[in-house]
């Protein structure tokens, strides 16, 4: 076991745990964001650099700080380590820079993007991005590609997190999906645009943090916040059969795997569940899906409101706003 302190909160975790996972065990605001790390995909992480944190004390044995910021998703903790995330100005500055880098070549086509409303990049941009861009050059674009008959690859939106390539390598057999070219010309592609024909290929859509990989059976059908997510399951021979149905009335618009509070799928689903059972009668509906992350989807009160929880949140907000009242006008000229 190793004792680490993250933003002043101490926790004891198993040896070998990464800083990010230790922070997730604490939970709350001090958890660094992650765009490329995916706990169920081996070797993922380290690439997007939004989870950078400062290690102010390396370990109890060697208290020297690590000179550079480290990727918290891939750096294991050491006993006595002191980590600064939100408490470090350097980290916030660097993260702001990384978000800006991720956005300069992103098309910002949220109004027509199917991922809008459940997009990690959108959330991150609201949280850390500036309101205007400093980048005035033509943005990078790619042609849209069909990966098989069910998945659309819109490379222009991609942030090169490599998650989908790990899905292709680890969940499906036969490696035909990878990265072509170099630098800012890098693109996700299949081997000479060969269609991916595999029972678990649809999980690429779920792991994609942005709108680069979208479900062709759902594209342009509805904004996600107009759909009603329900937990459901069916008896499936290939996968767990535990899914979320995104419905409008009686119509099932799409089927996805269930994501946890960090947007990660723990139980991947097969393509049969995803694409071939779009009748609500095929499923045993468990009830409304709770959307953990801050999202416009949860604003529609599809699930029963916990009044106690709501009251607590209002109180917290009031407490937070205390002493932040607007200054009173001094010369009275504001009176209308």
């Amino acid at each position, binding site marked *: 076991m190793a004792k680490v302190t993250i933003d002043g909160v101490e926790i004891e975790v198993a040896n070998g745990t990464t800083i990010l996972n230790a922070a997730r065990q604490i939970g709350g605001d001090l958890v660094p964001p992650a765009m490329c790390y995916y706990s169920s995909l081996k070797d993922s992480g380290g690439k997007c*650099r939004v989870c950078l944190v400062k290690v102010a004390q390396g370990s109890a044995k060697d208290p020297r700080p690590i000179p550079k*910021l480290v*990727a918290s998703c891939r750096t294991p903790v050491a006993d006595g380590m002191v980590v600064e995330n939100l408490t470090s100005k350097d980290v916030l500055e*660097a993260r702001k820079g*990384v978000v*800006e880098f*991720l956005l300069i070549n992103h098309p910002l086509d949220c109004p027509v993007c199917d991922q809008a409303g459940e997009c990690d990049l959108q959330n991150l941009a609201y949280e850390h991005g500036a309101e205007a861009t400093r980048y005035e050059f033509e943005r990078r674009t790619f042609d849209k590609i069909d990966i098989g008959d069910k998945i659309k690859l819109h490379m222009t939106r991609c942030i090169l997190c490599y998650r989908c390539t790990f899905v292709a390598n680890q969940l499906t057999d036969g490696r035909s999906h990878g990265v072509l070219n*170099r630098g*800012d010309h890098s693109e996700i592609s299949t081997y000479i645009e060969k269609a991916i024909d595999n029972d678990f290929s649809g999980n690429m859509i779920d792991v994609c943090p942005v709108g680069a990989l979208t479900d062709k059976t759902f594209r342009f059908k509805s904004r996600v916040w107009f759909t009603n997510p329900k937990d459901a399951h069916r008896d499936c021979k290939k996968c767990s059969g535990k899914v979320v149905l995104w419905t409008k009335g009686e119509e099932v618009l799409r089927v996805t795997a269930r994501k946890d509070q960090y947007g990660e799928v723990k139980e991947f689903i097969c393509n049969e569940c995803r694409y071939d059972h779009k009748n609500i009668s095929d499923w045993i509906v468990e009830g409304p899906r709770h959307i953990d992350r801050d999202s416009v989807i949860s604003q529609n009160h599809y699930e029963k409101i916990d009044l106690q929880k709501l009251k607590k949140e209002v109180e917290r907000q009031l407490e937070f706003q205390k002493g932040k009242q607007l200054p009173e006008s001094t010369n009275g000229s504001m009176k209308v």
Partner: protein
Amino acid sequence: MGKHILFEHINIPGIENFSIYRKNGGYASVEKALKMTADQVIEEVKESGLRGRGGAGFPTGLKWSFLDRKSEKPRYLVCNADESEPGTFKDRYLMEKIPHLLIEGMITSSYALGAKTSFIYVRGEYMYVIRILEKAIQEAYDNGFLGKNILGSDFSHDLYVQPGGGAYICGEETALLESLEGKRGNPRLKPPFPAIAGLYACPTVVNNVESIAAVVPIINMTADKYNDMGIGKSTGTKIISASGHINKPGVYEIELGLPVEEFIYSDEYCGGIWKGRKLKAVVAGGSSVPILPAELILKNAKGEPRLMTYESLAEGGFVSGTMLGSGGFIVMDETTCIVRNTWTYARFYHHESCGQCSPCREGTGWMEKVLHRIEHGNGRMEDIDLLVDVAKKIEGNTICPLGDAAAWPVASAIRHFREEFEYHVRYPEKVKNPKHFELEPMVSYQVSVNS
């Protein structure tokens, strides 16, 4: 005349052939090392104070001692001959002229490390060098210096040459290992370091060509004698590839501690600035190290003369210093446009970024475009601070040092030549011609405004 230990025999005709190399004392270090224990050889290299010649200057002996010896996995030695830094061409010259020196170093070093197999990863553009090395390796096999039971000892060793695909990033040690394994050359996240899990997840040492070649004289002349050369922690000799606006561009072996001024102006080395012009700036260790103006490269901020050592060039940190780097010494005369030069470097790093992590993938392209705009007379004053900010946000936040290498030249050029960037913004019509400073030298614009 400086002392040559790597290039001692380089001008002997036919030295690339085994018989002539052997006649001139070649492969003596293998014979000597095989009579020592492996630990004694490592100790000798440690004592010599040899520092990595690839750029970072990490002590070679220390790197060797990190190698995981408890592991039962095979150990590998990999020679990094993917020399692609703009301005650096020393390894090519060494491998081309005296290939047996590298092979001899590989055998001696492998013996010390207990590696049964080693690789020389050569830059793909150096195809003719690969042929020279392969011929030399065959000769070494034929003469019993490679293969089973070398010189009757129980040490067996196989050496392979692997051409790279022509990517600068594969000179980063973990990207090199990925490439050597046949994968896409993306740098790995560290830890684990190659000394624990390198090539095929086995303990691996990756060394530069010159570092491995330097093991030969260290064993031959003993660490004490090697130590006598150089100053302080910069021991021995260094091969410098000098290029740019000098009378005698070329590859020179210098004893560390040589004054920079002597290196640039003496007839033995660069022979002064060409066409009788004045020195403007120097990039002392390959394109990725900070550029320094003439007054700071000849003397440091304290007014002491700068020497060709790791410490002296770094004196003053990044505010007024630079790095010895890989020894790519680029000299610029007074007609050089620093903005254009910085843009050229930025273009290179944009082209060579692997695209794996966001700051480098996006930031290098951004810097290149802004620099292009300034150089071509379309810049704005705020662009200069934008560049500083972008460079700052790339530096230190990437997986591998390529991000730093891309950010440093831009940041340092603005630090030392800000006036010139402002001049480009202020007088766009004067910089439209690519050779603008050759046609009309830049005069300090404050003066020209006042007059």
